[in-house]
């Protein structure tokens, strides 16, 4: 997260070591440039939530919780349910995080992840409609960042996807033009699995799944989200810097390849 870079100064010797090691294809923690840290996904950890997931990417730790209720749809999409994705970088998570309304980093985080979910049509929002124009399911996914060690984008994305895939909601039926809750529990209509892959540029190299120290040394970050068919459904370049078109395409190809691998992991953890 750029939040780390604003305040955390990486030691010159460490940065030099990073660049030197990268020239030999290795990173400070022994990873290859295109290797991500071990991903651990645990679902159903918050029983009061409709769905939840704890995701750890190395030391980065996030918890996503899904709460589903019913409400009125937006005026311009009367036949679609509501899906809202929020993030909070808790003050617990880092010495540089402050309590209060979401920072520009937290907002960017939530919006990028939300775009990946929405554009990929992960959840068919028309299936969340009960009475057009009057009553729809409302799905809120709130993400608590518990410990920051780089790459909040991907950690949050995997947590939101895992929580939605394993979420259960009360089935409502329409009676007398009013929604009525039944005792039946149904899954959220998840059609596809968007997977985001974030890369940081250090020197000339692109490294996948940067940890905090690498983010402090990077001069550019790019996140690319792909869907099950290898299409790009969201992308965001971060940091005030430039990137060549060739590098962008390199990042896209990395993201498609690695995205596929991570999709398998998510499927496994959420079946």
């Amino acid at each position: 997260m750029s939040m780390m870079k604003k305040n955390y100064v990486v030691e010159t010797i460490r940065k030099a070591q990073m660049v030197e090691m990268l020239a030999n294809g290795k990173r400070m923690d022994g990873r290859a440039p295109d290797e991500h840290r071990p991903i651990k996904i645990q679902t159903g950890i918050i029983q009061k939530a409709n769905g939840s997931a704890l995701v750890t990417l190395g030391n980065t730790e996030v918890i996503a919780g899904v709460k589903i209720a019913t409400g009125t749809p937006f005026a311009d999409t009367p036949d679609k349910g509501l899906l809202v994705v929020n993030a909070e970088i808790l003050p617990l998570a880092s010495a540089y995080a402050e309590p209060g309304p979401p920072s520009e980093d937290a907002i960017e985080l939530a919006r990028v992840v939300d775009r990946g979910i929405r554009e990929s049509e992960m959840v068919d929002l028309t299936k969340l409609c009960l009475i057009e124009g009057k009553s729809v399911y409302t799905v809120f996914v709130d993400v608590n960042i518990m410990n920051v060690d780089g790459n909040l984008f991907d950690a949050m994305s995997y947590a939101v996807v895992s929580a939605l895939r394993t979420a259960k909601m009360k089935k409502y039926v329409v009676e007398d033009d009013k929604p009525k809750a039944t005792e039946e529990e149904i899954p959220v209509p998840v059609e596809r699995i968007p997977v985001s892959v974030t890369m940081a540029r250090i020197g000339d190299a692109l490294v996948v799944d940067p940890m905090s120290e690498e983010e402090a040394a990077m001069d550019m970050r790019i996140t690319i989200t792909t869907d099950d068919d290898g299409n790009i459904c969201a992308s965001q370049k971060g940091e005030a810097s430039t990137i060549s078109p060739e590098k962008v395409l390199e990042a896209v190809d990395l993201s498609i390849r690695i995205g596929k691998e991570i999709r398998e992991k998510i499927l496994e953890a959420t079946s």
Partner: protein
Amino acid sequence: MEPKRKLIGDDGLRQDGRTWDQLRPIKMEVGLLKNADGSAYIEWGKNKIMAAVYGPKEVHPKHQVLPDRALVRTRYHMAPFSVDERKNPAPSRREIEISKVTREALEPAVIVEDYPRTAIEVWIEVLQSDGGSRVAGITAASLALADAGINLRDLVVGCSCGIVDGKVVADLDDTEDKEGSGDMPVAIMPNLNYVTLLQVDGIYSREQFQKAFELAIEKGREVYAMQREALTKKFFGDGQVSTSSEEEAE
């Protein structure tokens, strides 16, 4: 008016099978968060709470700095998904009040004079809430303060007691808290035997008050034993302990 349903059965057992003086299952673990200076996680019944401490650290904004002691900041916050109906992430009046009484419960234990011109920040995040979350939060926060190595006079531990179906019971869960007729969170410094948190919600006769109050303190001491265990596990492991200074630098 609808008759209130009975929360204690004819067999004297509560909705979850506990007796009047039984605590819910409690688990604690110290030091799970890597960035925080100190941290502790607690599961108390269905409550799931993470507490973290950062500090001592510089005070921002600078004008709030205290020249002769540390400024203690505390935030009790509930995750939107922690309760039955999604809670807006912005702090509610309830959370703001709980943040204040939590700070006032913990601060007496912190030797603030040892850290002038600094801030000590305590962050309590409720991931799942089910009655008694404020005392559980205080209990975890105290562990986090000890884990961070801040000079403390004592640990702080809490427990909530109340009245259900006219009887004094220990450790109310969410249902008992909502449908019962009294809730009394109490926190103490167990070795010094001082009360640092006391709130009363409901109506108690003089005897009921004394019974609930003393029960809360008694149960608090049981929880204190678990705090000790959690800290011992992290710092002293199961191995032999050396008290020799032979190997230390002068």
